[in-house]
């Protein structure tokens, strides 16, 4: 039986605290910088995600899983600083964490023999094509999380948020992740040397996810969720006469309170929770090495 150690290497140790605080500060800096600059120059606007969505992939690529908890900390700080702390923060944190973690786990799967994931490993051993594939798959999952969160917090329908979030996440991560990760790698190694703490940077993503399953669930969730989100809203509005006039009354049996109206929201929340959990478990698929019993 495979032994899942989801927490191994992911729970923050005391030596990771400076790294986590630095990532949190980086998020805050980008948010405040965006706010200040938007009053001076016109910054290209993204409709579902913030500019901070460019950070999870390079941060985790450069600093490894030890920096992961800096992402929710950064989002809490950013939202608190802009008076928008709320359930939406939880959604953004889940999507950002998923984007960074999934990208790095998929990259690690492509080259599990490398001592640690880094920009040079991605460029020289994994290749840019596979990097784009990993980011696209991770962005699909993260976009589905954004869409799910939009329904969860009663903000935007899935079909509005998810496809746009996918495009925006891919646009922010594919071109900028590697240059930013190179920059963060230098900053992280300089910072950890200055603090005399180098252990956190040596931690690695240990998952070995099945690419096809992750692709199937995340792309399926995004595509089917978008179609279903439009479909059920249309079905809800179509008058019963349109079905009875075509001898399709049996379709109306689906119009149950548990499936439509208030029930639809709960159903979507539950389905999303199941799919997100499946994705997390798939990403944490233990590597072959984890299966070898320890002596």
């Amino acid at each position: 039986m495979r032994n899942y150690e989801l927490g191994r290497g992911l729970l923050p140790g005391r030596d990771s605290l400076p790294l986590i605080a630095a990532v949190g500060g980086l998020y805050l800096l980008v948010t405040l910088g965006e706010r200040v600059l938007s009053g001076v120059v016109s910054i290209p606007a993204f409709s579902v995600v913030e500019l901070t969505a460019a950070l999870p992939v390079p941060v985790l690529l450069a600093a490894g899983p030890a920096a992961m908890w800096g992402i929710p900390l950064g989002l809490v700080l950013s939202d608190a600083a802009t008076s928008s702390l709320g359930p939406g923060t939880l959604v953004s944190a889940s999507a950002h964490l998923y984007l960074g973690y999934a990208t790095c786990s998929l990259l690690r799967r492509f080259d599990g023999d490398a001592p640690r994931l880094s920009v040079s490993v991605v460029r020289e051993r994994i290749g840019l094509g596979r990097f784009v594939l990993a980011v696209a798959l991770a962005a699909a999952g993260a976009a589905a999380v954004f869409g799910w969160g939009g329904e969860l917090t009663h903000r935007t329908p899935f079909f509005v948020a998810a496809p746009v979030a996918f495009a925006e996440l891919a646009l922010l991560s594919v071109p900028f992740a590697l240059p930013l990760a190179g920059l963060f790698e230098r900053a992280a190694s300089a910072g950890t040397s200055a603090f005399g703490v180098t252990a956190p940077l040596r931690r690695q993503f240990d998952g070995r996810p099945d690419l096809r399953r992750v692709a199937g669930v995340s792309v399926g969730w995004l595509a089917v969720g978008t179609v279903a989100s439009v479909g059920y809203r249309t079905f809800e509005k179509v008058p019963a006469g349109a079905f009875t006039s075509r001898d399709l009354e049996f379709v109306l049996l689906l119009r149950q309170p548990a499936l439509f109206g208030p029930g639809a929201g709960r159903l979507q929340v539950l389905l999303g929770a199941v799919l997100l959990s499946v994705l997390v478990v798939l990403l944490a698929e233990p590597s072959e090495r984890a299966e070898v019993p320890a002596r």
Partner: protein
Amino acid sequence: MRLTRRRALLGLVGASSAGGLGVHELLDRTTTDGPLSDAGMDGLLTVADVVHPAAREDVEPVISAYVGRLNQDRIRGVVRALSELDSRSRRHFGSSFGGLSRAQGERLLATLGVNRVQSRPEGTLAERARYHLVNSVLYALLTRPVGTEPFGIGNPIGFPGGFASHTGEP
């Protein structure tokens, strides 16, 4: 205890379902009571600015009169939608929704997908904003000459101006 795949999945599904449903239900029951404040009226004027070409000072009395005739349920829906828009507006632009310019208001509404959703009195913020704010403001304006004169219609359907238009000078 060993953490197997099945246990990990069940644990995550349980935790995320309970947390998700909790947040969903809690936010669903959040209601904002009370009359429409001046800031709320500013929010409606921002919506009018975005969806209609008439000048702000012309539309204000029309919208004010329309809101005065709404029942308590409708007022509650308007106030709730505006307070949520305020929160999004502070995040994006650092000011309340009523303080936004036309371009900023349009960008925020488009960001939420208000131009792409159907109107629903109970739904996501985008759907509620379409129902309680955009469609209400349009209804108020397009049933009054103030709102239809920019389009060359001096006596719109729903406006009791028949007598004046028939007895006045052509």
